[in-house]
């Protein structure tokens, strides 16, 4: 972009905003994957806990 005073910039504020939006969108996608990975871990931990709870009555009867 050439300004009226002759100085030049190589990007417009609008393009900078577009780039920031693009970054935000990319991070949003990663956040979605991060959330699903955390949920997966949570589910696995819950499974472990319920396994333990199921086992307990047997252990008690022994």
């Amino acid at each position, binding site marked *: 972009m050439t300004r009226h005073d002759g100085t030049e910039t190589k990007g417009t504020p609008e393009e900078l905003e577009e780039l920031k939006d693009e970054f935000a969108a990319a991070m949003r996608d990663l956040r979605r*994957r991060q959330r699903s990975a955390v949920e997966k871990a949570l589910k696995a931990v819950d499974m472990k806990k319920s396994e333990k709870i199921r086992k307990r009555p047997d252990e008690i009867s022994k």
Partner: protein
Amino acid sequence: MDTPDGIIETPPAPQERERAERPPERPETAPEALDEAVDKAADDFESEGAAFEAFGRAEFERVTGGDIPKEELDADPQVRDAKRELEDVASQSRVLVDSFKGRLAGFGSRLKRWGRAALAGAVISSSAMNVAEAATPPDHGSKLEHVEKGKPGDSVAVRAIETLRADKGMAAQFTPEQLQAFEGALARWDGPKMERALADIAGLDAAALAKEGVKEIRLLSDAELRVMAERDPKNVDPKMKAVTSNDRVLLRASAFVGRDGAIDGGEVLHTVAHESNHAEHSRSDSIKHGEQVRPWDAVLPHGVQEGVTEVLALRGLERLGEKSKDQSYAGGNFAAGFLLDKVVGTRALAHDYLTGGTDQMRAALGEKFGRAGADRILRKHFYSGMGSTGAEPEALSTAVDIIREAKRAGMDVGALLGTAAAEGVVERMQAVGDGEGVVLSKEIPNDAVGAVASAAVEDRVPLTPHAPPVRVHVLSQGYGARQADVDFAALGKKIREGASAIEAARAEFIRANGLDEDFEDDPVAAESYAAAIDAALVKAGQITPGETFNVVVNAADEMRPLRDSLAKATTRAERDAIRQRMADEAVRIARDVQAKIGSAAGAAAR
């Protein structure tokens, strides 16, 4: 000036008119303010990335931090998977942050701070930007020329270089020499000049073109491309060489590394020219599925569009004083574009490409081959597949059509195809038999495949008097089913049914319209007949309307021994001979497949 009610208005004074015509001035951002905004964005990207990683770690700790022993959780495959996925997204966020920070390097007012000469000097020397270095005469002669002519006139290329320099992913993947070679190639690119060259070829005013070329050019590291492909697996292929999307050109940097590790700067430049042409052809005022529409997509085979894009990249670069060679794979794209160029002329080709029409090409083809001939060439061939199909064999069909029409019009087809070799085009094109087909072959020295060959050959005699001929496409790699996997009996039966459907539809068309056998001499009747045939084919389950039955065969298995001997060949003569044998083999396979289909179709008729 007359108004509708007849009152004559005084024309505005010149100064007033100038004011009225000038677009309203937008408030400008001072360069320093933009620099500050850029610096702040870089900090924001960095802190958002760091926060993302910290959050992922903390969440994992929170979820797994209960009373179940750590060793037990570590041994659980689900937990291990989740942990791996979290590590993967964390590493991808680092790639993203680095990449976006790199792209920010293309912003700001550095041109003001360092001065135009310093930046130009830095582009040449690929060194730190300082005036002293810029003042030192560079040792790369041809690049100095660009600077003297006003480089960096193309701010897109300058931004691409600055982004490349700031890209940590690229720095991690490539050596300084390789990065310097990439920079050198980008420094040779001048988009506005290329645009003017193309407009000049087309006889158009560059200022009146709908587009202003590409907005951004980026060389991508494999790491970044992987992140992009994971985000958008439908549209981003991590193995792609280059892609243009909404005026943005993306190049996979590793695609330009030769077997010896050297970067082919000419190929980088050529690919940028090719991709930039796609942007010139696309319409920014027409968006479909989030992408700018390419007008030829609706009317011509995609491969023909690719071929013309390639031909115009060559012609445009020639105008810029850059000698390039076609980078397309053999298969039809380039052949179709090249032959169209030869028959209609570069001016008509470039005009229609830049304006998105086909009028000038159609007129030029009509003059040589008649209206019907022009229509046969400028059409889509494959609507769906008998066997798998694709862009390259479809374009090969366009090449066959051009050859067939040229032959009918009494042109010297051998001479037409021979011009490619005379112009230094790497693709070798030969007519098959009496113009019933074409075979292409090409050596690709820097690629693992070594050489490629493709042929399209038509049946001399159709199955029934009015059925279209069967056109067999043989490709040495890529598209098509292996012969061993083709059910020839079923294919022959299907084609036979199509031919019978056409004969029945023709008889019905003649009866219903009270026509004679020679009705096709009347263009109006011929056009409605074509529509009736298409409808009959669809009804018969053939789906593929149009003039030919298309079959695509992949001959990678049959070509393997020839490829192996090519790998061992040491002299150019040996390699040329093997490439020719591959071409001959492609034609032999095409004829063989035709014979098999013919006998299966014959059996189906009995």
